[in-house]
């Protein structure tokens, strides 16, 4: 068995707000192996972004990672590290790219300076050496005329080129883990194709692992090997990508797959998941999906399901794992009666 690169156990990141405790991430556990791409998929408010920020310990008050959560990376417990050592890991061994490259770049520095700064901070390179490495990295990520464009400011670049700058910054130190949080969501589909291709190519070259967070099941299908489906602060299903699409187990995963219009598919009426995601201050009792679920029965409202192991690498947080015969009797979910 390969040693995991990243091991997250019972991660709970809660926000204590005036309207109550928002349990944004509430008991999330997963591993990322070396060189693999793990996808995290879910809708807004499911906790996927807070999970990724928690790994880097980038949670500000009123949020906090609750005691008992463990994040082990390269054999070290990140929760126990002093902030100074954590800073040496961020942008170096673990780096991150975000959805909106414009707000993640500093508008008053050239993009070359910003890429070079990574090398200066983390490897103490000289100004000149850092600049040269920055230009080289920008060329590697496909920036045309890199030596010239490095002197430009973020606003002078298109969205796709800005995302390439972000990727250059993230890969400068050759990280073991790249966390990509909706890296193509703000981009047009033809530019998205370029960026996804670039990420795959860079992974091949640098041998890093990628944690890819997205709401887009198409991106998941094309770019990942293993998938975590999140709902209401929890992982509700985990499976290798082919198995997830071919044989989804959790009714939420099934619902998501059915609700998506697909290019080339028959034009039938789209399946819907009735209702909407509940607020994180008031997760429903029992299974958090029960009032939107077409299979829910009495047990689901009372008893919170554990993550049942249903296959060698397949797990599902649904009582159907124990009572599969219930799947034969779908009904109108409770939430269907109140939009």
């Amino acid at each position, binding site marked *: 068995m390969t040693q995991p690169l990243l091991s997250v156990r019972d991660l709970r990141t809660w926000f204590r707000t005036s309207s109550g405790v928002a349990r944004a991430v509430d008991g999330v556990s997963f591993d990322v192996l070396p060189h693999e791409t793990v996808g995290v998929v879910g*809708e807004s408010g499911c906790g996927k972004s807070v999970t990724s920020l928690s790994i880097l310990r980038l949670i500000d008050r009123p949020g906090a990672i609750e005691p008992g959560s463990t994040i082990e990376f390269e054999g070290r417990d990140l929760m126990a590290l002093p902030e100074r050592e954590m800073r040496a890991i961020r942008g170096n061994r673990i780096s991150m790219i975000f959805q909106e490259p414009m707000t993640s770049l500093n508008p008053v520095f050239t993009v070359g300076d910003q890429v070079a700064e990574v090398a200066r901070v983390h490897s103490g390179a000289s100004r000149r050496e850092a600049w040269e490495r920055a230009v080289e990295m920008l060329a590697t990520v496909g920036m045309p005329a890199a030596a010239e464009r490095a002197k430009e400011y973020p606003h002078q670049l298109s969205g796709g080129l800005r995302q390439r700058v972000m990727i250059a910054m993230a890969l400068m130190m050759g990280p073991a883990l790249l966390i990509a949080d909706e890296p193509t969501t703000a981009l047009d589909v033809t530019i998205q194709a370029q960026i996804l291709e670039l990420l795959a190519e860079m992974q091949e070259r640098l041998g890093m692992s990628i944690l890819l967070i997205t709401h887009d099941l*198409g991106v998941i*299908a094309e770019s990942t090997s293993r998938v975590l489906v999140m709902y209401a602060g929890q992982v509700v299903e985990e499976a290798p990508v082919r198995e997830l699409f071919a044989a989804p187990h959790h009714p939420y995963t099934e619902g998501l797959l059915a609700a998506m219009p697909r290019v080339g598919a028959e034009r039938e009426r789209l399946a819907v998941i009735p209702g909407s995601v509940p607020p994180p201050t008031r997760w429903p009792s029992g299974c958090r999906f029960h009032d939107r679920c077409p299979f829910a029965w009495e047990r689901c409202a009372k008893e919170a399901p554990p993550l049942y192991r249903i296959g060698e690498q397949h797990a599902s947080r649904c009582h159907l794992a124990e009572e599969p015969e219930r799947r034969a009797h779908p009904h109108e979910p409770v939430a269907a009666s109140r939009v």
Partner: protein
Amino acid sequence: MTAASVPSNELSGANGARALLSVRGLTKHFPITRGLLRRRVGTVKAVDGISFDVMPGETLGLVGESGCGKTTAGRSILRLIEPTAGEVVFEGQDVRALSGEALRRLRRQMQIVFQDPFSSLNPRMSVGAIVREGLTIHRIAEGGAAERRVRELLEEVGLRGEYASRYPHEFSGGQRQRIGIARALAVEPKFIVCDEPVSALDVSVQAQVINLLQDLQRQRGLAYLFIAHDLSVVEHIADRVAVMYLGKIVELASAADLYREPLMPYTQALLSAVPVPDPEAKRQRIVLPGDVPSPAAPPPGCPFHPRCTHPRKDAACARIVPPLEEKEPGHWVACIKQTPTAIGWEEQQAAGGTLAPERFIPLESLHSARAAATGAELSGE
């Protein structure tokens, strides 16, 4: 191509039927000004002479990437921004010639649903007041009758009538989009511009809103101009689709034809780039080089030529502006290298052309991948 050269009905799906909306040569240029005197130093050709028809009860999809001009086109049709040139005819009336009371009457027929359900509803107005506004302005109903109508409208879009007294912040994104749809329906329009109505919504909620729009269309015979960047959503909802690139329509066809056999190299690349939610699908993806050029400095000739992957692309593409031509029945394409074309080979050679036009269909494997994906779904049932 100039507006006048397109005969009526040619750009519509159903020959002989009368278009509800006819757009000819619609143009919107924004000036770029500089300095204290706001000297004009350039022009952004956001919409650059587009023509199409929308038939009664039809959904025309308008797709393209950011900055292609699709939103500006939708707003110019409604005169929410004033077009620079061109003709917009709705039920025989010249929309651009109207003003005052006549324009107001016309606006009852033509409504819009916006992308962002958070900024398009006034947070200080109750939901009832938002939906009632149109009823009052157009003197459709007052007092108790208006109250009843508001409740009916809310129920029609799947909300509870008693929500009328609540405020927008109390609702989720999907519910707010339903409120925006109820507002548009209040004045009983025949035509609604849907400007990215589901882009801000999560997948599960998006499906609810798409189904609602389709139900309302069936019940009320509504026509939609459905503006979106999501090609799978458009294929699902549209009868015909127009593809825009840098302010121009580069392809216009029935949704079935366009998605089965796109002919414009830009559309081919766009469709091949859509991620397919099927890990078993074998994909042939056309990754386009570079970025979309600025609409302030569009390339000469064909606006797409710098990124084009057509194997017959040559110097003529940089000189000749390709007309939107009917390459197959009802399938309009702006490309002088896709046969047939009215731009003769001699004319192309005179413009520096070295490669004779030839039909280019790179996406066969994409089709088989799609067929396989659909088959897999069926057998998985």
